[in-house]
């Protein structure tokens, strides 16, 4: 029975990246990152994980790692686009500014803003009543432009624990 449910769920959740993106668009925490493909080419990293797949992933990790499972089960979508900037920051910074304006208009709260000569970081959070509906991170420097959008319930303490449990390496090497 369990296998049958799993197979059915897999059939339901096996959606291409574009379809998952379309699913996420209707969520309140969704942020429409402007397309920078024309300027920087194909993104170095592009990930869209929908809520259904996250639920399934949560269920799959529930037995071995309940803390991670709880963190994942609260999420409704995870998206990221990473472009290599190769020192050309200006187009990415313009897009960040555009996104920042639209986020403010949509009642997102700016929680972290860093302006430095060679780097800019903008972090916004959207709360809906007593819940967090989204977290948006935009970070641009001479190496890369990162546009990250997490939709759903987010607990930074849990994220830290999950980072440890998953052995996430922050020294990213995506070349």
């Amino acid at each position, binding site marked *: 029975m369990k296998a049958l449910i799993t197979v059915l769920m897999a*059939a339901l959740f096996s959606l291409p990246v574009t379809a998952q993106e379309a699913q996420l668009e209707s969520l309140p925490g969704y942020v429409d990152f402007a397309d920078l493909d024309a300027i920087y080419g194909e993104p170095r*990293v592009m990930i869209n994980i929908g809520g259904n797949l996250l639920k399934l992933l949560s269920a799959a990790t529930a037995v071995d790692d309940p803390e991670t499972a709880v963190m994942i089960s609260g999420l409704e979508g995870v998206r990221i686009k990473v472009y290599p900037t190769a020192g050309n920051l200006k187009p990415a910074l313009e897009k960040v500014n555009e996104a920042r304006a639209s986020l403010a208009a949509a009642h997102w709260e700016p929680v972290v803003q860093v302006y430095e000569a060679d780097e800019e970081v903008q972090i916004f959070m959207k709360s809906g009543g*007593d819940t967090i509906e989204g977290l948006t991170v935009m970070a641009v420097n001479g190496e890369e432009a990162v546009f990250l959008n997490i939709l759903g*319930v987010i607990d930074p303490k849990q994220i830290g624990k999950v980072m440890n449990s*998953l052995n996430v390496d922050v020294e990213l090497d995506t070349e």
Partner: protein
Amino acid sequence: MSEKGQPDYPELLDRFIDGEVTTGERQLLLCGAAEDPALGSKLASAMELQRALAGLPAEKAPTGLQRRLRTIPDKHPEPGPPRGWLLRPHWLIATAALVLALVGGGALYQHQQQEAELAQAKADLELVLAYLEKVNLKTRNRIHSTVSEVTSEPVARITARTLQDQLQLRQEFEL
């Protein structure tokens, strides 16, 4: 003649009933029946059947039909309604086995595909979290601290709720 050099008695019996045996073949059958009581019994039945058929006022049944009738086994466990060849037990078993094999193979393939998708989703999520942590470190842990301050109370309640949902989901999976 059979492959072993022995006369093909079943075939001869068939032809005997049809009245198609030669004198030599008839003699062969009689000699064989004298040596083999089982063959003798069959030959006696065949003779009775031949007499019965000859005595029928109606036209003699076609030879093909008679042959098909004779392929029916001598002993039946239970007399039942006529069945087509597709409905015979061994065909039913073979068909059921084939269907089960196809369904089982398909389910196994989908299960493996789903496992691969889950592994990919987990790797993607780790990558997204790695980028989040990378930005967090660049901003001197300001994502964790700021978001924690803003959301500590709601997240506690939300976490409890998602934990409850998670347990329910697990119970459904275990059923």
